């Protein structure tokens, strides 16, 4: 059987498994979005209202009559197709840019630092990894404000007014995947360079540079490929916090702003199940786009390098 046909068959066999996984994730989203209504408190006790899990069924019915795609902002009701795409593309821009930057920074630094795994600078990097995203964002924002107040220099925008802030959000969102990759790749490089075939290549008289280009980097691309999903999830996790603190009009901020409103005694407000489900589905699509794009890029690189 030709190699290409065999590959296509393999893909076809995997398709039902991937579709069933996707179905399970959608079910998880439908159940997760119902939790704010399922878990409630009344008369000093926690009360679990399991019937609210059936809201998923109502949502599916709402897809056919269009009611699942409407949301309220208090006074007005909008269709998600009018409002959500711009927020979706804002978030997509941040997630894609930060993931790519994180990989481009973390991968080479990880390789260069493989002999410094137990050094003090590596320990400092580990400490930086324990500092959460919200802390880093707040410290950066306070520093930029103080700098502007004392020197008049406007280094970066700390929140969205009309234009998207670029420097700080992208720095924070690519910082954590870069740190993660530095750790993973330096560990993997240490292991690859400890293998016998590297010693064999060295004994053949190949230069250090050539061994890295021909042997080590192709082997590390497989490690990178396995870590792509984790990198994208890291950026996605940071985007929730970054959009809140930089006031970016992205999909995650919109979800909390309009979906999770406190009930207003004068009318309006309250939790919007369908809107939250739609936002979570958009976030899932965003994750799939970015992770598959990165995965494809790395696989293409592996193929062209013949690894």
């Amino acid at each position, binding site marked *: 059987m030709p190699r290409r046909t065999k590959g296509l068959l393999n893909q076809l066999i995997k398709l039902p498994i991937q579709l069933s996984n996707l179905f399970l994730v959608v079910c998880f989203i439908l159940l997760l979005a119902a939790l704010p209504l399922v878990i409630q408190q009344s008369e000093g006790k926690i009360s679990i209202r399991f019937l609210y899990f059936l809201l998923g069924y109502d949502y599916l019915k709402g897809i056919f009559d269009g009611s699942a795609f409407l949301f309220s902002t208090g006074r007005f009701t909008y269709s998600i197709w009018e409002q959500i795409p711009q927020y979706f593309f804002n978030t997509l821009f941040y997630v894609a840019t930060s993931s790519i930057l994180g990989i481009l920074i973390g991968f080479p630094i990880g390789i260069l630092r493989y002999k410094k795994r137990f050094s003090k600078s590596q320990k400092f990097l580990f400490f930086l990894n324990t500092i959460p995203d919200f*802390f880093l964002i707040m410290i950066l924002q306070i520093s930029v404000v103080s700098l502007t107040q004392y020197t008049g220099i406007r280094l970066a925008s700390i929140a969205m007014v009309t234009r998207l802030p670029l420097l700080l959000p992208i720095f924070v969102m690519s910082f954590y995947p870069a740190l993660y990759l530095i750790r993973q790749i330096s560990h993997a490089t240490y292991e690859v360079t400890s*293998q016998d075939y590297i010693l064999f290549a060295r004994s053949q008289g190949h230069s250090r540079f050539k061994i890295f280009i021909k042997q080590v980097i192709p082997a590390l691309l497989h490690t990178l490929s396995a870590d792509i999903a984790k990198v994208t999830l890291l950026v996605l996790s940071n985007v929730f916090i970054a959009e809140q603190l930089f006031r970016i009009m992205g999909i995650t901020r919109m979800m909390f702003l309009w979906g999770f409103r406190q009930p207003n005694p004068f009318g309006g407000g309250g939790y919007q199940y369908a809107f939250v489900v739609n936002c979570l589905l958009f976030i899932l699509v965003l994750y799939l786009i970015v992770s598959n794009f990165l995965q494809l890029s790395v696989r293409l690189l592996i193929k062209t390098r013949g690894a």
Partner: protein
Amino acid sequence: MIKILTKPGNWELKIGTCLLLLLILIAIIGPFYAPYDPNYTESIRKVTVNGVKKTIFSPEKPGARHWFGTDFWGYDILTMMLYGAKYTLSACFLIALLRVFLGTVLGLFLGIKKEPSQKFESLGGVPSFVILVFIFYGLGFNSSIPTVNLFLLEVFFIAIVGLPGVLFPIQKRTNEITQESFIEAAISIGADKIRIVTKHIFPQLRGYCLTILITEMITALNIIGQLGIFFIFLGGTIFTQDPPLLHSATNEWMGIIGQSRNKIFSQPWLLLIPLCAYIIVLLSFHLISQGIEKYYEKKYTQTPNI
């Protein structure tokens, strides 16, 4: 732990432990030495400076009267932090202990049967604070549940949602140990499962569990902080419509950070002081974790060939 502490060297562990003990002491005796009552507010006060009468409105900058300043409603920040310290620290300890206890027990008994499925392992990648926001939204705002009960309930949920992060590594480690020949020898002489787990596998994992315990304290601290960004404060969020206010019921440190997060321009000290306290807690946990890792660090037999 005492055995590790008494060993010479390992300054990370010693400094980290001293710092943590100091924080625990502040959390215990702090409320007795707090300068004001936690319900005392001073939104307006009149002072005479050089014979001129002045009116000072809250929030007040840090000064002699209020060392850490006051918040927008006139509450003394130092008092809030002294009363809130016990909630922050106890939440970290309880969450980490619960996770490590349940994770170790389940991980040991599941690990001797099989290694964790990769499908479930990837579930750990979903940001846990997002799931927790969904769980706490209906519970935390203007809750009728007593503060301490709500605090314990939230601690329980945070521990459970993050359980896979502890369970799977322990299950994996346990499964690796079960492949060792000394376990086969124990089985061949008729040792039952409980004996194998308690007498043969667990002693191998003791150091690993201690490291995970400290790492989980850091994780718990970060998750509480991330929840605070969404105005979900441990022990409950007091929400008022007029004026629109979201306030931490326990004055827990992450809550103080969360409720002041929009004051970067106007009152940065409201944020900067609790952030400094936060980094001290984080640093103490990190130093302890580094110290323990240093103690248990295994020497690598492999060395790079280039």
